[in-house]
């Protein structure tokens, strides 16, 4: 597909209008509209989030007492495997990439849709079957018991059928991720509105470009590795089976070659979303645009060469430990640049303390904490003590929950008015925020101490000296579970009863706000606006607002 000028695409195509279901039914159809697909991703992965959260509830209930007394030990291992797999592959990765990516990227590049709308729909529709397969397997064959990392030889000796189903499911989800990533790269590089330069794109485009590069480079490695693992299980080959001459450490290298970049596949889009949300609610331009772009690309590069820091206790040679220590610690530099730039964005702004802003600021606090423990973990001697303990569990939940999930909530408060045309209730939003923030810190902060003092991860039973802190952590988990209620009530109730949002309730400058709420099919009734200054807050309207170019009938033209 070549660069289509908006005039060509604006011509409606009658057949598609009649064959595609309209109204709410299109959300259950093979829709090609990027906005429908984006919302399909967001809602589907939120349902999986509820399942993954229930599994976390099982884990925290088991850990209330030091004995294994709530579920059987096998079930406990199944639960922790499913929890990790669902939260990573069915919640965080799809929602920040497929969900918000699909909804926002075409707006941001000034396109009517993604570069490959059919591939886009295929990528989405791989997710529900893969997720249902994974969950259904629990009731048919039992589910995998070897953790989301599926290290051999454990994954070769636990029930084979369950492990194979797990592999098929992850392969489907990985395929979906690759299709999505190809689409994002093509859309950002090739579908930009004529006249829109790369360095004028909103930061989320850069984040998605970086993320997609990572996904395209590393996900195939995971797919290949899991295929070899399935051969070991099904055909009794010996790639990773030491009794047949295989090497288990090779699996770890291949697995982490994907799974460390996967962390950035989960957090880089969140960084991008925060870069969109903060300037709008602080009424200031995003500070240091170009350094933000360079730091994303630095994170992408460094993210590919740090995987062995997950293997410092696996008998890796000393030089390798040294190299991966330094590479890992240096990721803190571009990441730090981004955080300082966000703080500078807030400095001197007119900050609206609404739910979106509170969640975004809590993200900064949580992620800085997780980043500091991350730099500590990068140091080999430090890691040797706390590797595979609750310290690590605390650390990565600060990164993926305190980081990404807080941003997801922030983004929902920010873009819900665009999705539905209705505002979310601020009081319920603030209750949701307070419960989530307190519950999250109560749940995961004590886990650092537990890990330092001798509690390994992935255990159903533990030393009774750790009981009190584990109970505290479980109380935090309960608060987090409860915090979902005001959110769900808010989202469902506001859909029918919420205040009417109007086209641009936040007076934002990025292109998705320069159309109706919800936007029409193909995004703008008229020509796509050319937004050369997506963060031009605090300037004269004539300089900041592309009013003269934004000629669409419904384009917001206020001050």
């Amino acid at each position, binding site marked *: 597909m070549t660069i289509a000028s908006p005039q060509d695409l604006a011509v409606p195509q009658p057949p598609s209008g009649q064959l595609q279901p309209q109204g709410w039914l299109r959300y259950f159809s093979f829709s090609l509209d990027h906005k429908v697909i984006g919302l399909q991703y967001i809602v589907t992965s939120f349902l999986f989030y509820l399942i993954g959260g229930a599994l976390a509830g099982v884990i925290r209930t088991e850990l209330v007492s030091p004995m294994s007394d709530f579920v059987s030990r096998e079930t406990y291992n199944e639960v922790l495997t499913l929890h990790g797999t669902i939260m990573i592959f069915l919640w965080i990765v799809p929602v920040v990439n497929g969900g918000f990516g699909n909804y926002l990227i075409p707006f941001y590049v000034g396109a009517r849709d993604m570069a490959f709308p059919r591939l886009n729909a295929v990528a989405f529709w791989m997710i529900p079957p893969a997720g249902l397969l994974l969950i259904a397997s629990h009731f048919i064959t039992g589910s995998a018991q070897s953790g989301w990392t599926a290290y051999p030889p454990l994954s070769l000796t636990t029930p084979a059928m369950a492990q194979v189903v797990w592999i098929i499911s992850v392969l489907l989800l990985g395929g979906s991720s690759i299709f999505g990533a190809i689409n994002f790269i093509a859309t950002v590089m090739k579908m930009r509105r004529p006249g829109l330069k790369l360095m004028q794109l909103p930061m989320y485009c850069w984040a998605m470009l970086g993320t997609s590069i990572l996904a395209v480079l590393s996900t195939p490695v995971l797919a290949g590795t899991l295929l070899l693992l399935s051969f070991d299980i099904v055909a009794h080959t010996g790639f990773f089976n030491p009794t047949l001459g295989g090497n288990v*450490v090779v699996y770890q290298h291949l697995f982490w070659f994907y799974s460390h970049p996967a962390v950035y596949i989960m957090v880089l889009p969140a960084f991008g979303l925060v870069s969109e949300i903060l300037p709008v609610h602080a009424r200031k331009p995003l500070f240091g645009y170009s350094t933000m772009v360079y730091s994303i690309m630095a994170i992408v590069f460094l993210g590919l060469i740090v995987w062995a820091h997950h293997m410092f206790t696996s008998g890796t040679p000393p030089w390798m430990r040294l190299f991966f*220590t330094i590479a890992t610690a240096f990721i803190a530099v571009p990441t730090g640049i981004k955080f300082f730039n966000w703080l500078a964005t*807030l400095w001197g702004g007119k900050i609206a303390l609404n739910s979106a802003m509170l969640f975004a*600021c809590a993200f900064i606090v949580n992620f800085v904490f997780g980043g500091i423990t991350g730099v500590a973990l990068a140091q080999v001697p430090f890691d040797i003590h706390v590797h595979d303990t609750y310290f690590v569990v605390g650390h990565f939940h600060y990164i993926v929950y305190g980081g990404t999930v807080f941003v997801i909530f922030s983004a929902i408060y920010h873009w819900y008015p665009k999705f539905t045309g209705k505002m979310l209730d601020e009081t319920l939003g603030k209750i949701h925020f307070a419960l989530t923030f307190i519950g999250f810190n109560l749940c995961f902060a004590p886990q650092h101490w537990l890990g330092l003092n001798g509690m390994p991860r992935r255990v159903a039973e533990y030393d009774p000296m750790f009981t009190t802190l584990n109970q505290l952590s479980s109380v935090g988990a309960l608060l987090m579970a409860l915090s979902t209620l005001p959110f769900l009530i808010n989202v469902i109730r506001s859909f029918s009863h919420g205040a009417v949002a109007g086209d641009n309730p936040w007076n934002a400058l990025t292109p998705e706000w320069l159309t109706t709420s919800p936007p029409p099919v193909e995004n703008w009734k008229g020509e796509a606006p050319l937004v050369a200054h997506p963060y031009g807050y605090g300037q004269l309207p004539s300089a900041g607002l592309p009013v003269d170019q934004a000629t669409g009938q419904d384009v917001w033209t206020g001050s």
Partner: protein
Amino acid sequence: MPIPPSLITFLVGMALVLAGLWLGQNVSLLPVDASVNAPVYDELFKVLFSIGSILFIGILGLLLFSLVRFRRREGDHSDGAPIEGNLPLEIVWTAIPAVVVLFIGIYSYDIYDRMGGMTPLNDHSAMVHAASMEASATMQVANAATSEEPRVWGGIGVRSDKDILPVDLTALQFAFIFHYPGANITSGELHVPAHRSVELRMKANDVIHAFWVPQFRLKQDIIPGQQTILTFTATRPGTYPIVCAELCGPYHGGMRSSVVVHEPDDFEAWLQKNSPAPPPTASVAQLDVLPVA
């Protein structure tokens, strides 16, 4: 006369650094130290804790200050100042973290070296102990077929030059079994003398396990198909937990044992008491109770 902002910034920064240093020195989050490695580790921990506290409190303070000071007042619909960046500022907050990270990296490398992490175990020690490797008979077919001496993977560990106590460790689902080749003792519990280097030669029979003693600040995966060596010197007599830290199956949480650090004389006594009677084949019956479940 108003206090100049630069002075306030300076004073706040100083207070922050002092607070961080104080926290690092006075807040202890770690269990008791019981090996030569542990005090070295704790030194690193204090440095990381101080730097981390300074950064975290500083950023948290800056954020909270901004949220209060620059909050949007009722009825104010104007925008903030149109500041899009500041190159000197960007250079400062690129350079300072880079220097800090580089410092931490070099410092932790030094710590790692002092903990014995850079000892080239693959060369001479593999030869020295090749003879004692009856393990190689049961080790992997591929290893035995392709190389004369099985490859030994080094874990971390300080090794003193005087006499080293070798102990064989076999990990299996779901127990650690220790064997003292000199005294021909097999035990489910590790007994070691204080102030003498112990060399654990570790192998796994089924899946990956990990040997972790939190009070020693040491952990090493025990990997099927690769014999691994971990050296440590205990310092403080007492009983400490040995924890399996790698998911190894349903009873992973129950795969625990203890290490008992004796005074050197007490250790000799323990050896005497537990050495089997002359027919060495009886040693298997000497197995202590395995801490399964």
